[in-house]
Every structure is written in C-alpha cells, then in structure tokens.
C-alpha cells in the first residue's frame, strides 16, 4: 500500500496530503485533515451527510477517492460561513429551527447552497427533489424546506 500524493484546493486553500488508494475524500477530510463537519452516515451515497462540491458540482465525498481530488477545487461545510457571517441558508435553518439533532445539517447546507446557486427561485417541489439525497430522520423535512425557500427569497432580495 503506497501512498498517493495529492495537491488540491479545499475552501480556497491549497492543501496537500498523502492518502491510500482506497481512502475516500470523506476519509481524508475527516481523518487526515481534521475537517469533521462532513459526516459519514452511510458511506454509500444514500444519505448526503458528507455532501461537498467538487469544481462547483455537488457530490458525496464518500463516493470519491481522496486521490481523485488532485487538481480539483473542493468546497466543504467548513468553508461556507465567512468568519462569523453565516450564509443565508445557514441563517434560515437557525431561524426556522430546521434542525433537531443536527447531524444531517452540514450536508443540507452544502446541498441547498449548491441548489440556490444554480436555481435562485426554485419551487417547493424542486427543493424537495434536489434534496432527496439528503436524509433527515428528525424533522420530517418541513422546516428544512421552509428554510431553503426563505433563504432563496432573501438571496433574491425579496
């Protein structure tokens, strides 16, 4: 098992690491880089708790090898708030009490932000389908959907 040297960018910062072939990007983030905001809920792409963006595209970091990050730009939950200033999605999740245990929340934040960047004025149905890969077992999704719709409205300036 020989390590692979990877140079990548995470949340805008140049990062280098050495990983084993079978290590996923999620393993690297959590175990090598101490970025534990991305969660492992299933390791099979079914829960979305490990959502990140790769070159701007939403994906599950459990479904990507650490080695594949070479030369890419990775965005994680840790990069979303700017200092103490929350992204509207984060703020609206807080305002709407759209979390209970909070373990799925980072994944929802990353996924919802990606949605609103692509589609600033989504319908409720569009939000629900976009987020269908983010499991939440606590809330019944109601308040999460409301929070994302509120964030969309705020970002549009309404």
């Amino acid at each position, binding site marked *: 098992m020989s390590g692979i040297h990877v140079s990548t960018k995470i949340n805008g910062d140049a990062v280098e690491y050495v990983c084993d*072939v079978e290590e996923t990007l999620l393993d690297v983030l959590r175990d090598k880089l101490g970025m534990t905001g991305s969660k492992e809920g299933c390791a099979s792409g079914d829960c979305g708790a490990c959502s990140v963006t790769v070159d701007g595209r939403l994906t599950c970091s*459990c479904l990507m090898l650490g080695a594949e990050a070479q030369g890419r730009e990775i965005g994680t939950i840790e990069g979303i708030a700017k200092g103490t200033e929350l992204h509207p999605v984060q703020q609206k999740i807080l305002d709407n009490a759209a979390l209970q245990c909070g373990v799925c929340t980072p994944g929802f934040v990353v996924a919802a932000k990606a949605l609103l960047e692509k589609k600033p004025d989504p319908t409720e149905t569009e939000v629900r389908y*976009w987020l269908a890969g983010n499991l939440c077992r606590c809330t019944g999704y109601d308040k999460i959907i409301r929070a994302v719709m509120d964030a969309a409205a705020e970002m549009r300036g309404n």
Partner: protein
Amino acid sequence: MRYESPQTVEAAAALLAGEEGLARVLAGGTDLLVQMRSGMVEPDLIVDVKNIPSMTSIVEENGGYRIGAAVPSAEMNEHKGLCALWPGVMEGADLIGSTQVQGRATMIGNLCNCGPAADSVPGMVAANAIATIVGPNGRRDVPVIDIPVAPGKSTLTKGELVESVFLPARPKRAGDAYLRFIPRTEMDIAVVGVGVSLELDGDGVCTHARVGLGAVAIKVLLVEDAAKALIGTKVDDAALEKVAAATSAACKPIDDKRGTIEFRTKVAGVLATRAAKIALERANARASNGGEK
C-alpha cells in the same frame, strides 16, 4: 492496490490489459466505491478515466451526439441539445440516485456495471445507442443491448473499456421516454423500468419503435413484440393495450426485496403504456416545433 489516471483511452486500455490481478475502471465511482467499501470487490488496479479528453466530452456528430464514458449525468442533463433530442435517455440517466450521485455517476458506468435495473440502459436500448469500445485490438462499435450479459457480467474482454456512447440523429416526428417504478419518489433502484422510442410519419402513424425493459430479467431486454404492437398504429388505446401485454409477457423477473414476480410483470405493462404515451406526446410536440432540438 494501485491508482492510475491515464491521459488517453489507449493508455487506459493498456493498463487494464497489463494488470494480472483485478482491474477496475473508475468513472463516476458511484458503484465501484460502494462495492469496495463493502468488501465486495478488492481491485488491484483502479484506472481513473476522468482525465481522458475523449471520455469527458459531449460532441455533436452527424446530427447525433457522442457522449464520453466519464461524463457525469448532471452534465448530460444540462446539455440542451441532448435533452431535446433524446429526452427519454436523459431522464433515465437523471433518475440514477440523488443530486449528489448525479454529479458523479455516468451513464456508461451504469451500463458497464451490468445491473439489470440500471436506469439509463432501457432508454439507450430503445434509442439503439451504439457503444464505442477500445481495447488491445483497437476500436469496435457495439449496440448497447449487446454489452450486459448478467449482473456484473459484460461482453467486454480483458483490457477493453467503453470510450463513448453514440446517440443517433432523429427524424422530425420522433420522441422517447423512460419511466421506472420505485416505491419512493427518489433514491431507489428500479423495480421495473421501461424505455420507449417512437418515430411517426406525417399522418401520425408509428413507423419505427423500440422498447427497452429493465429490472425484470438477468439483463435489460429489447421487447420486439411491444415495438411491433406500436408500428403501423397511431399509438391508440388498442395498440397500447397490446404493448402492455407484450411487455408483461417479456418479463422473466424474480421475487426479491424490491418486488414480486407478479408485481413486476403487471407494472411493466402499465409503465410501457405510460411511457409510450409520453413518447408520443414528445414526438408530436417536437414535430410541431419543426423538429428543433
């Protein structure tokens, strides 16, 4: 375990051919990584094909499109021309997994994984998509239907990989659709999947049809009897009833955690008629649109 990221498809084929142990192609990785994690497969070599230009692009060709094997489904579904020409194929690919999975999963990975329930395959079969295979002996073109043999088993030989899939041009009055049945609204594997492609003449009579059927046999099927039931008709209720019967008759399903034989057989017919109706609507809409892409 080794990881290689070649720059050309020939180099990829050479790596695959040269590996004595188990070699696996890594495109989207949404199947491979899950299989590795669960211990189902332990490859000795992983060949990442995402740095090969011919495998990461969508190119217009003779009025149709050539789609590289490493193009993720999300990218295909953002391609206006592709979505206009083959909406059914695109919606099949679009149904694979979540938005997150869409960002990685590829249609050709879906094909080469050889799962009978692969969502993108019935649509490609209905479209008569052609796969371009590269291997130690060069290139060959093969209809998509001929690639899967059984779950996890394909007709690709050692060292071969699919470089791209070609979706051909279509006449003005043509449409396709894919429908699958799943218990939830998202995130499930198809219990039944049906892709229908139709071409109509100026009078609205079906001149050409293909029906692809998934999740009801050890591989995706081409249902010729269902196509025959459509050709020569105006895709009316009588024809659709025959399509349902022919599709159900073609099913050779199993009872498993996702559905029963009885359920799959019946629902296959239901979906075939529903998909045919959508394909018909699309053909007519496209024709009234002047056959624009």
